[in-house]
């Protein structure tokens, strides 16, 4: 009846997961109860959970990412603590089978459920606003994508309470991840969760490529799109083409595990090297899925806070698209040592170095944007500068690793761990934190506290370097990654420093929460009245903060590269706004519970597959199909916002803008 699921699945005899589980369950229950007592559930249901508004969905993605960041960071600090304790005679506090689950969960969660939703969240929130339109191409599908992602995150975290997680590393290489060597549910949790969230990701990619290519404001031609939209386009193209390959690799491993196929097994002619190949066909482009939108955020931040147009806009666009293509030509550098031979290694090594060139172009563009500008040293600019310092070093260690003979020496070492954390934290996480500070007022109508923001930056910056610079050294000394116990006592000081670094990052994460709470508490003093708190240059600053559901009463008419900046300067010069347009009623998509119900059935089905409860899996599939048919049968997918309401809101915005214009003209 319940397949493999028995009472043994609950970790009664392991105190750490048991206590964590209880604490998490109590916390979730308490928050749910508190929201219910406050009477906020209907609001949450109507305004967020079932919303098809790209801004609300973006916020939900980012909330999911921040929650998962806490989980992923808890794993990280447990690993660092174990490594700084388990040296020499001491065995530390984590047994190997638990430690292995932690590093696997850390990688999986950080990439799939922190970095991805964070990046997708920003694309959701920003892209339609920057393109000057009212929503994405497929608003309902957007909601479905989010909930499928959340469903994957739920399943990964469920492994904490029921059963176990994979002990195979974040990419679950066979033959270790085959049934013969990993008979438990851990790898199945991993596979099923990633397949479900992968479907969501492909749908997101379809949605955003279509949006950017087909839905833009009048006059917003390709070479007038903000760089963030270009990077989002590149990133989504990569997603569209890379995620199917991940689906195939994971599906083949599932077939091996569930039906006894022989893709990657040691017997039957299987070939585990094929899995490494396929997973990295996806895996390397994945790096660029994350880092390209990050580059986009830096571009926006650099231009805005330097008070100058972005230097070399066209070269930036060109570099982005080159990276988009070349990212598909370098995947073998993840397995130079597997034995493809010198000629193949040389080809992929050279391709990996070539991809550094467009990246270098971008770094110079940001530098020249700041050069000669009137730079305002706000939190996002701190992150930009911190990024450039950190990322260049990370990029250089990457070029080292791209040289096959060097890779043979340092592959799979702590040097590698330090390298990819340097590009992901220094490149992606810094950008996400910059974007969080930059767009927060647009989402909620008040700014985040600047002082605490800077404190968070310093925690990340100092903490990161303390945590990962020692790993470069240890890597050179021969330290391999994923060690549960360290036998050489002379490594102790370095590992202690690394632990200290992790603690400082932890303080940064706590301060992020404090900053949020403090900013909410003092929000009345930090209101963004005008909708343009940073003197921005792109269209999202044209509308109010937070924007109305439909973003723009009339789609803005674009006349140049920096759509909003041009318009603003004209208004300031002529001391008047453009003539009041003739407002029209607006058609907007209605809310739908489709996404959350589909994700519910997907979670049920996934859970049933993990535990071999076949009847439940079939029920889940039928349920998901039924809800789709139900949705397809609806006739009304849009509602009309009456012209009076549009006009009223638009006039209010014009009044605010006029006042603002007077203040500006008086001050100059």
């Amino acid at each position, binding site marked *: 009846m319940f397949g493999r699921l028995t009472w043994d699945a609950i970790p009664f005899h392991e105190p750490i997961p048991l206590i964590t589980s209880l604490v998490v369950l109590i916390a979730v229950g308490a928050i749910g109860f508190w929201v219910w007592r406050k009477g906020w559930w209907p609001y949450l249901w109507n305004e967020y959970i079932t919303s098809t508004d790209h801004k609300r969905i973006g916020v939900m993605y980012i909330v999911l990412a921040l929650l998962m960041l806490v989980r992923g960071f808890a794993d990280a600090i447990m690993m660092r603590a174990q490594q700084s304790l388990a040296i020499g005679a001491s065995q530390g506090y984590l047994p190997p089978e638990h430690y292995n689950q932690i590093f696997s969960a850390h990688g999986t969660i950080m990439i799939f459920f922190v970095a991805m939703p964070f990046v997708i969240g920003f694309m959701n929130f920003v892209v339609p606003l920057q393109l000057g339109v009212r929503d994405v191409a497929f608003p309902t599908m957007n909601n479905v994508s989010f909930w499928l992602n959340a469903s994957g995150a739920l399943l990964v975290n469920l492994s904490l309470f029921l059963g176990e997680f994979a002990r195979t590393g974040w990419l679950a290489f066979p033959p270790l991840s085959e049934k013969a060597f990993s008979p438990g549910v851990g790898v199945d949790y991993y596979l099923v969760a990633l397949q479900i969230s992968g479907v969501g990701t492909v749908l997101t990619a379809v949605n955003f490529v279509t949006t950017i*290519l087909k839905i833009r404001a009048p006059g917003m031609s390709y070479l007038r799109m903000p760089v963030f939209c270009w990077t989002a386009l590149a990133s989504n193209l990569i997603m*569209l083409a890379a995620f*199917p390959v991940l689906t195939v690799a994971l599906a083949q491993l599932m077939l*091996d595990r569930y039906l006894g196929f022989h893709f990657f097994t040691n017997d039957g002619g*299987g070939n585990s090297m094929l899995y490494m190949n396929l997973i990295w066909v996806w895996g390397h482009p994945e790096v660029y899925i994350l880092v390209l939108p990050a580059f986009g955020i830096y571009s926006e931040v650099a231009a805005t806070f330097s008070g100058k147009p972005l230097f070399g806009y066209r070269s930036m666009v060109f570099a982005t698209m080159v990276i988009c293509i070349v990212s598909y030509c370098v995947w073998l550098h993840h397995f130079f040592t597997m034995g493809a031979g010198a000629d193949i290694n040389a080809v992929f090594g050279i391709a990996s170095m070539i991809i550094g060139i467009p990246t270098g172009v971008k770094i110079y563009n940001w530098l020249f944007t700041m050069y000669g500008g009137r730079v305002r040293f706000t939190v996002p600019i701190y992150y930009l500068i911190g990024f450039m310092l950190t990322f260049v070093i990370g990029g250089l260690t990457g070029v080292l690793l791209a040289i096959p003979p060097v890779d043979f020496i340092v592959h799979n070492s702590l040097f590698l761990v330090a390298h990819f954390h340097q590009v992901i934290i220094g490149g992606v996480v810094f950008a996400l934190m910059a974007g969080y500070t930059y767009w927060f007022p647009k989402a909620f109508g008040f700014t985040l506290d600047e002082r605490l923001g800077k404190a968070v930056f310093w925690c990340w910056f100092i903490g990161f370097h303390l945590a990962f610079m020692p790993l470069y050294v240890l890597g050179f000394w021969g330290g391999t990654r994923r060690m549960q116990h360290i036998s050489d006592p002379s490594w102790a000081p370095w590992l202690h420093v690394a632990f200290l670094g992790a603690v400082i990052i932890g303080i940064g994460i706590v301060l992020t929460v404090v900053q949020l709470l403090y900013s909410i508490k003092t929000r009345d003093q930090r209101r963004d009245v005008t909708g343009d708190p940073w003197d921005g240059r792109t269209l999202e600053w044209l509308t109010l903060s937070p924007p109305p559901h439909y973003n723009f009463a009339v789609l803005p008419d674009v006349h140049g590269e920096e759509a909003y900046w041009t318009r603003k300067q004209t208004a300031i010069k002529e001391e008047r706004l453009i003539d009041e*347009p003739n407002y029209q009623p607006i058609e907007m998509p209605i809310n739908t519970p489709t996404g959350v119900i589909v994700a519910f059935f997907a979670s049920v089905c996934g859970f049933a597959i993990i535990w071999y409860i076949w009847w439940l899996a079939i029920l889940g599939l039928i349920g998901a199909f039924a809800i789709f048919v139900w949705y397809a049968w609806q006739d009304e997918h849009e509602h009309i916002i009456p012209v009076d309401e549009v006009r009223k809101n638009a006039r209010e915005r014009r009044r605010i803008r006029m006042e603002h214009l007077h203040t500006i003209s008086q001050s100059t």
Partner: protein
Amino acid sequence: MTTEAATIGLTHGGSEDTGLGHRGPESKSIVVPYGFWLFVLSDMVLFSALFASYATLVHATDGGPTTNELFDRGLVAVETVALLLSSFVCGLAMITAKRGNMVWTQAWLVATGILGAVFLGIELYEFATMVGEGAGPQRSAFLSAFFTLVGCHGLHVACGLLWLGTMMAQIWAKGFQQHIIRRLLCFSIFWHALDIIWVGIFTIVYLIGTLPA
């Protein structure tokens, strides 16, 4: 939305430089099939990974049966013709649907479905025979790759049939509304794409696999 901008005199006269941008957002009749076209292309990439796996593992027979011993060209020829005709008939259904002809549209769609079911039936028969001969997917890596590649295409056809049935019911119940026509167009893109993938399969798997060694 474009109309609105035009009435208030905000659109550019079409003299703007590049891209589609000067006209503002495209209508749904363009956006929806375009999005679906992207999805189909992403599905093609999925199949490319399956083809690549098959090509890698085709000689990993582990002492079991090889391609020449298993495949029957006659059956494949019938399958191919059935799927090709199905694709053609689906095109005819699109033509009649655009003109709102209920009877002919349903008739062509039924024909599409029957031909698809013939294809699927032959494929299942072939699979059953192979499994019966002890050449199931568990036998060797080659057979795992074969069943996954061809089976994934078959699964797509099966899902297509499910979609087709739902679509026919919807047209019957609701008539030719704009959004239903759009969905039917998406279905036809899907169905033609499956035919394209089958061209790759019958060439690479069946014909090249049965060339005299």
